[in-house]
Structure formats: structure tokens, C-alpha cells
């Protein structure tokens, strides 16, 4: 156990040392150095939880939160609310009565401000109005999305012919490999139909899975297990890619070892 810790520490220190060496000759700028050191600070968690990691983690949360605030300000608050609201003021010299075409935006502005009543228990209930407006609209959007995008379209897409003529003619070409794939092609449509039906049976029939229902539900579980296996394989793939990306950054941008 100690050996592994030590080895990881040595690799991390080795990378840092190589970086220092290479830094004397490589063209890595200040930004790359900052990024590389922060990367190593986060990686240090692999050794164990430590103050350097904790500090980096908290700085990250702070920067991310600050970043969000600035983006909401420049990309939403100003263009969608503030500028349209004060647009009338620009013409104030032409007319004694300022004309505000987007006065209606005062409503979402007020609802937005009301959200902050959550910090004051006595008036916190006012924030429910704003919450309700958000929850209502997103629920409505979610309903139509699930209805037309998933439910209708997916059921329609599953109406496939039980066998396809192409698969049948392609089947029987010589060679064991093409025999296997020919068979798989032949099974494609039947399995799509059976797979969906049995999965749905497994999900929706809450009474005891016995007899025919039991067999169907069992087959449904097999399909689900295969799909979970596929998801697991893809998840491994995803996580590994993220690691490759970070190590590639260290080895190429920072150390210049990899082109």
C-alpha cells in the first residue's frame, strides 16, 4: 500500500520535475504553468486527501460560481432584461415623456428579485411565485418534449417489419464470420420488437411475474442487463478519455514531450 502511494507520488513529482526542467527550454507560458500546477494539485488527491487538493477544489468552486455570475450578467441580464428595459431612455431628449416599449419585462424582473426573499424567512413565501412560474413553464415544456419527442416518435419507430428481405438474401454467404453476422442481421428486427416489449412488460406489470409474464419479464431483464453492460463499457471509455486528455495536456502543452 505504501509502495503504491510512493510510486504515484514519485510519478507526480517526476512530472513536476520534468516540467521544471523542460520549462527552462520549452515555450510553455504562464497560463500553461498555472494550468499544469493546478492539474497536479487535483491529481494529488490520488495519493490521498490533502490541503493542496482541498485548496484547489475550493478555488475551483469559487471561480466557477463567479464565472456563472458574470455570464448571467453579460449574456442574460443585460441583453434580455436591462437593455430592452432602458431602451426608452435613449430617446428621452426627443420627447418629454420617456417611452418604454418593454415595460412588461418589469414582471420577470420583479419575479427574479422575489427569489431572493428566500434569505428572509418572514417573506420567503414570496419566492414561491417565481418558482411557480419557472416550474410551470418547464413542466409544460417537459410534457411536450416527452410526448412528441420520445413517446410518439419512439413507439412509431419500433413498428418494423419482422424480417427484412435484404438480411434474408445476404444470409448464407460463405465464411463463418459472415454467417454469424448474417444471422445477427436476420435477428435484428425480431429482437428489436421482442426487446422493447419484454422490457416494457418488466417495467409496467407490477403483479407477480409468474408464468408467461414471468418468462417475458425475465427476457426483459436480460435485454436490460445487456444494455447496462454496454453503458458500463461506454462509461469506462468516457472516464479513460478524460484521463487521456489531462495527461496529454501535461505531456504536450506543458512538458513538450508529446507533439
Amino acid at each position, binding site marked *: 500500500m505504501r509502495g503504491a502511494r510512493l510510486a504515484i507520488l514519485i510519478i507526480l513529482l517526476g512530472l513536476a520535475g520534468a516540467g521544471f526542467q523542460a520549462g527552462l527550454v520549452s515555450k510553455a507560458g504562464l*497560463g500553461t504553468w498555472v*494550468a499544469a500546477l*493546478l*492539474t497536479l494539485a487535483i491529481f494529488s488527491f*490520488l495519493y490521498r486527501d490533502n490541503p493542496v487538493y482541498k*485548496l484547489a477544489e475550493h*478555488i475551483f468552486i*469559487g*471561480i466557477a*460560481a*463567479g*464565472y*456563472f*455570475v*458574470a*455570464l448571467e450578467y*453579460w449574456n*442574460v*441580464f443585460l441583453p*434580455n432584461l436591462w437593455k430592452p428595459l432602458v431602451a426608452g431612455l435613449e430617446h428621452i431628449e426627443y420627447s418629454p415623456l420617456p417611452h418604454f416599449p418593454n415595460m412588461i419585462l418589469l414582471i420577470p*424582473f420583479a*419575479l*427574479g428579485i422575489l*427569489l*431572493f426573499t428566500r434569505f428572509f424567512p418572514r417573506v420567503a413565501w414570496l419566492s*414561491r411565485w417565481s418558482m*411557480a412560474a419557472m416550474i410551470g*413553464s418547464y*413542466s*409544460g415544456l*417537459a*410534457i*411536450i418534449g416527452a410526448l412528441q419527442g*420520445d413517446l410518439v416518435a*419512439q413507439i412509431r419507430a419500433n413498428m418494423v417489419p419482422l424480417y427484412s428481405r435484404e438480411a434474408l438474401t445476404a444470409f448464407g454467404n460463405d465464411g463463418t464470420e459472415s454467417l454469424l*453476422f448474417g444471422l*445477427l442481421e436476420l*435477428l*435484428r428486427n425480431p429482437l428489436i420488437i*421482442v*426487446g422493447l416489449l419484454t*422490457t*416494457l412488460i418488466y*417495467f*409496467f406489470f407490477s403483479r407477480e411475474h409468474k408464468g408467461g409474464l414471468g418468462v417475458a419479464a425475465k427476457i426483459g431483464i*436480460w*435485454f*436490460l*442487463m*445487456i*444494455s447496462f*453492460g*454496454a453503458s*458500463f463499457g*461506454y462509461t*469506462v471509455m468516457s*472516464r479513460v478519455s478524460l*484521463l487521456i*486528455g*489531462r495527461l496529454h495536456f501535461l505531456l504536450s502543452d506543458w512538458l513538450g514531450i508529446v507533439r
Partner: protein
Amino acid sequence: MKNEVPVVVAFFTGMLMVVSLFIPHPVVSTPASVVRQWAIIITAFAYVLGVANIARISLHNVKRRQRDWQYKAALVFALATMATIGIALGIESGGVFDWIYLNMYVPMQATMFSLLAFYIASAAYRAFRARSPEATFLLVTAAIVMLGRVPIGEKIWSGFPGLTEWIMEVPNMAAKRGIMIGAALGAISTGLKMILGLERSYLGGD
């Protein structure tokens, strides 16, 4: 006022979204688009509320000198600095804000997620056992997919990519479609409950 108004608001906004799909007439689509613009603005405030909450809790922690308060102080400092720089100096490409984003935000978040590679490998080693036929299905599929999705798998057996694609397109697709249909029905019923005021947990207590 405390309970009725929110239920009415949720009902109208929600129904407007749903009805505008079926009746694409300006009588419905105009107010619907107004409400969507409002949702955009209110959600932005909600985000800022979340950030304000993080700041408030952290500051509280610092003031009381609770455990790890030094880290919370760093958090608040980073938050205030980033927000101030962004709002005061702007967010243009090549500016200070962009620099901090690219050289601090990006590497830290990317590295945090990359740690998961180690955990999933060790989880695969420790917890992945063929205890039942179902678990064996899962395990074998995972192994085939892992080999079929990388170029070296092709070198081992040229059939791996084809087999993997078939698994993805047939049994995986059928099961995922089943899950999708189930989830869609769930989303529709939850959404309707929200809009009709049958589900009011978002109102909180009292």
C-alpha cells in the same frame, strides 16, 4: 396568497406551453413566447441565487471560524474576484476573465472528472463479479463493447466492431427505448401533477 397564487401561476404558464404545441395561432403562441422569455430571465436570477447561497454559507463558516474555514475564505475570495473581473472588465476572448477561465477553471474541472478513470478501473476490478446469469450478461457485454470500441480490438478480431455495433443497435437500443418510453410516461405524469397543483413539494413547508 401563499399557496393559491403559485398554483394558479404554475397552471397558466404550464398550460400555455402545452397548448401552444397544439394551437400554433398567435393568440396562444404570442403569450407563450412572452412566458418563455420570462422563464429565461427568472432562471438566470435563480442561478445567481444559488451562487449567493454558496457565498452566504461560506461566509458564515468563515465568520464562526468553523472547521476548514480557511478554504471557505479562499472560495469566497475566488468567487468575488472572478465575478468582479467578469462584470467590471468584460468577458471578451483574450481578456483577464478568459485567461482565468482557460487556465484555471478548465484544467481544474477537467482533472477532477479525470480522477473518475482510476475509480472506475478499480471498481471494475473489485466489484464486477459473475454472480448470476444476469450479471454474466452484463459483464460479457461490457467486455465486448470495451474491446469493440477501440482500434486494438479490431486487430484482435476484425468482427469486434461489427458485433459491438450490433449490440448497440439491437439489444441495447431496444432496452434503452423501453427505459425511454417509461421515463417519458413518468415525465408526463409528473409534469401534469405540477401544472394541476397536485404536486406542490416545490412550495416547501408551511
